């Protein structure tokens, strides 16, 4: 028997039938009664219910118990509830331990009732064994830095930043592109209201850029993140723009000067057109500044930054065309520029990750042919929008080069006839890469709606167009969405339940589409001028890297994983880091905005008090036992351990605001001088021994 006065209360939950249906509660209760130091054993239908908690509180108040073991469901969801109950009744809440006899026992062994009962006994015995060794702990507080970093300047990032900035928090918005705006800036209209994307987005871009509490750091990426909630130390690398942004006015003179040889596919137009090596991301860019793409630049003056210009025979320097064109000298190549850009260090209390998504390239889908007239939906978006490569004129994509030539002539005041072909038939194909085990098993969620939107916009503008849409099934959940679908049907757009399995090029660049109509149960064929693939929304390529830097999780599908699908949808496993928008999973604009605002408010409510309660389940060094070998120092993932002088000797010491309680140090310490509170060596070993001995608790 232990010397201390330990009175353990064991509370067994039936969880309705969930536990009682497989575990013989009476037998388990009888067993528990005979465990050492157990003073009270009770069972109840729902231990977590109010009356259930009251049973525990009553026993504590009456002094019957001073350690609580609840045998119920998983501590991952219910430990906090019961801890609070203990606290309410006046017991240190760390005198609580849980045995998981539902999720890990009754449910898993539903058809082996006897064995489930046996296992439940052992699990309870292990919990009791641990409970005997529990120690009272006090919550601690950490000071919080009230700045927030928002990673990603798309619609989600913008809203998160604005909400926080308006609430008085300083926000650093880090965007990897030269301009904020994200994918939404590429869209023509937005469902379900069909309002112009630019019209609703650009004012917000300006607002966030001009907000006194927001600091934009565009063309920049997160390099490293250290520290933890309340005290993140972030290094952001601002990429080299090769243009002096202080001087650049965004006039665009340089863009036209950039020679044709230096043209590369324009990312903003999804590769439908070309841009120069020096470019402004798009006309409405914020900040509207030019950057030079060093990979695309052909150094046409034979000069790079910091190099002496070559000179003409009469000694005049030969300048690069962009340099020459720039009215403010922002493009000057006189000074050398560090290709690595600039490293900016930020101290923030919280981080919101809203890095968005990318759409799958059509290249991987060989079955839909390599024709330029098979395009992704995002390309279609660029094709129909007035800011797109064709100024919204609908022509087949294979004729865009013709269009651009024609436009050049017209701009130069020449007369010319545009010979581009206008499509008569457009086919939409859904679930390209989504709901497909070869690519992504998830549904990309917005494709049905944006396909309907594009079809609707097209049909309204060009009623003579024949539009065919192939869906595995149409998913238009929620308010206003099915009504939108209805509108589309009423426009006479032909909708098929069934997937397109093949698109074959015809000699005249038109496309033979092979689909299936589940309604008639027949294969169908048609000739289409354009085929639009609703390619899947997928995580950005570098999302995993970013997640690793941030120490947050990525799901099997590659998106950032939220702490809990239902209850903590914008939280991550790392406290203080929140997620919003498509980085978390495919979603539409309203959902992204809602999530962004949720993330902002989560960050705000976390930081507003200025300090935060932290569970004391962290490690502590016993300096008497510590031999100062320092293994722990290097192993600590949070740099929380340092060597300090103690009685003239070097000993390790843990910084409790940095420690997250992983226990790596405790495990590594050869003399076990480090204790991880809540999971001490003695506690874990007591559990292990008890289970190893099949429920027999060994006296120590």
């Amino acid at each position, binding site marked *: 028997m232990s010397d201390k006065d330990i009175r353990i209360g064991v509370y067994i939950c039936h969880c309705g039938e969930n536990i009682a249906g497989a575990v013989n509660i009476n037998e388990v209760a009888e067993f528990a009664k005979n465990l050492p130091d157990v003073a009270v054993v009770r069972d109840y239908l729902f231990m977590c219910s109010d009356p259930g908690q009251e049973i525990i509180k009553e026993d504590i108040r009456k002094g019957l118990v001073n350690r609580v073991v609840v045998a119920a469901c998983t501590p991952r969801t219910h430990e906090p509830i019961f801890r609070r109950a203990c606290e309410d009744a006046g017991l240190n809440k760390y005198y609580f331990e849980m045995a998981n006899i539902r999720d*890990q026992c009754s449910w898993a062994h539903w058809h082996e009732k006897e064995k489930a009962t046996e296992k439940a006994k052992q699990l309870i015995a292990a919990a009791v064994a641990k409970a005997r060794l529990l120690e009272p702990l006090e919550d601690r507080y950490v000071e919080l830095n009230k700045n927030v970093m928002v990673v990603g300047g798309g619609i989600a990032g913008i809203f998160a930043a604005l909400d926080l900035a308006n609430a008085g928090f300083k926000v650093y918005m880090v965007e990897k592109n030269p301009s904020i705006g994200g994918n939404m800036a590429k869209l023509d209209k937005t469902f379900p209201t069909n309002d112009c994307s630019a019209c609703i987005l650009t004012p917000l871009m300006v607002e966030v850029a001009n907000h006194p509490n927001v600091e934009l750091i565009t063309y920049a990426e997160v390099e490293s993140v250290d520290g933890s909630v309340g005290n993140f130390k972030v290094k952001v690398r601002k990429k080299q723009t090769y243009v002096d942004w202080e001087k650049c006015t965004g006039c665009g003179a340089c863009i036209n000067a950039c020679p044709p040889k230096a043209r590369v596919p324009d990312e903003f137009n999804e590769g439908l057109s070309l841009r120069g090596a020096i470019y402004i991301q798009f006309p409405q860019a914020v900040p509207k500044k030019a950057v030079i793409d060093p990979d695309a630049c052909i150094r046409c003056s034979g000069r790079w930054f910091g190099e002496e210009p070559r000179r003409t025979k009469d000694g005049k320097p030969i300048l690069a065309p962009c340099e020459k064109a720039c009215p403010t000298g922002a493009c000057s190549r006189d000074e050398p520029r560090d290709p690595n850009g600039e490293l900016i260090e930020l101290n923030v209390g919280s981080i919101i990750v809203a890095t968005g998504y990318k759409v799958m390239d059509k290249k991987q889908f060989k079955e839909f042919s390599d024709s330029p007239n098979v395009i992704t939906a995002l390309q279609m978006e660029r094709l129909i929008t007035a800011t797109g490569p064709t100024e919204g004129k609908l022509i087949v994509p294979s004729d865009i080069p013709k269009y651009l030539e024609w436009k050049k002539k017209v701009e130069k005041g020449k007369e010319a006839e545009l010979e581009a072909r206008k499509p008569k038939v457009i086919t939409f194909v859904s679930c390209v890469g989504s709901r497909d085990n070869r690519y992504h098993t998830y549904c990309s969620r917005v494709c049905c709606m944006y396909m309907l939107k594009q079809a609707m916009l097209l049909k309204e503008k060009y009623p003579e167009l024949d539009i065919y849409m192939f869906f595995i099934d149409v998913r238009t959940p929620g308010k206003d969405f099915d009504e939108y679908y209805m509108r589309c049907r009423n426009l006479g757009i032909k909708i098929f339940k069934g997937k397109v399995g093949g698109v074959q090029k015809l000699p005249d660049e038109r496309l033979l589409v092979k689909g299936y109509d589940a309604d008639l149960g027949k294969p169908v064929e048609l000739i289409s001028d354009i085929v639009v693939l609703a390619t899947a929304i997928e995580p950005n390529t570098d999302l995993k890297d970013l997640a690793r830097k941030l*120490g947050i999780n990525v799901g099997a599908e590659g998106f950032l994983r939220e702490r809990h699908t239902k209850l903590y949808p914008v939280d991550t496993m790392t406290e203080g880091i929140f997620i919003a928008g498509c980085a978390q999973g495919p979603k539409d604009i309203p959902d992204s905005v809602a999530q962004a605002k949720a993330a902002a408010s989560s960050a705000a409510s976390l930081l507003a008090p200025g300090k935060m309660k932290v569970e004391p389940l962290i490690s502590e060094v016993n300096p008497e036992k510590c031999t100062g070998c320092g293994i722990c120092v290097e192993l600590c993932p949070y740099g929380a351990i340092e060597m300090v002088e103690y009685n003239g000797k070097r000993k390790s010491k843990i910084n409790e605001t940095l420690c997250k309680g*992983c226990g790596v140090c405790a495990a590594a310490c050869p003399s076990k001088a480090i204790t991880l509170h809540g999971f001490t060596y003695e506690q874990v070993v007591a559990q292990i021994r008890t289970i190893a001995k099949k429920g027999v608790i060994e006296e120590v």
Partner: protein
Amino acid sequence: MIEGQEEGKMEEWEPNIIVIACNWCTYQAADLAGSLRYSYPPTVKIVRVPCSGRVEPEFIIEALINGADGVLIGGCHPGDCHYKNGNYKALKRFELLKSVIEEFGIEPERVRLEWISGSEGLKFAEVMKEFNDTIRKLGPNPLKWKEINSV
């Protein structure tokens, strides 16, 4: 001993398996397996630790010495550790421990390290079944037998 008798005895014998699971992945996977009603042998009992990096070789030694027939450490997949890289550290300790027990004549198959993420409920159940089969084939923990015999 007559062969048949031994076999009969073996049939009655059920392995005793301890899983030391990290709170963020494998423990969650076990919960998920339960909530999806994937069944696995009830011989498996889980001890929760915050991170696989918390697992000390002594935990495994204690489990084996005190009679567990198999010990499985469950952690997050490489790169997914909630504590950045505790799982890598766990792996090293585990490899060392495994070679030690092997040298002393305890079948290394009695200890196993698995990366099971929180969403892999099915994998959890499958790994448990497989591990249970492995242990069943190996038979009772010889340490336990030795101790009992020596009494």
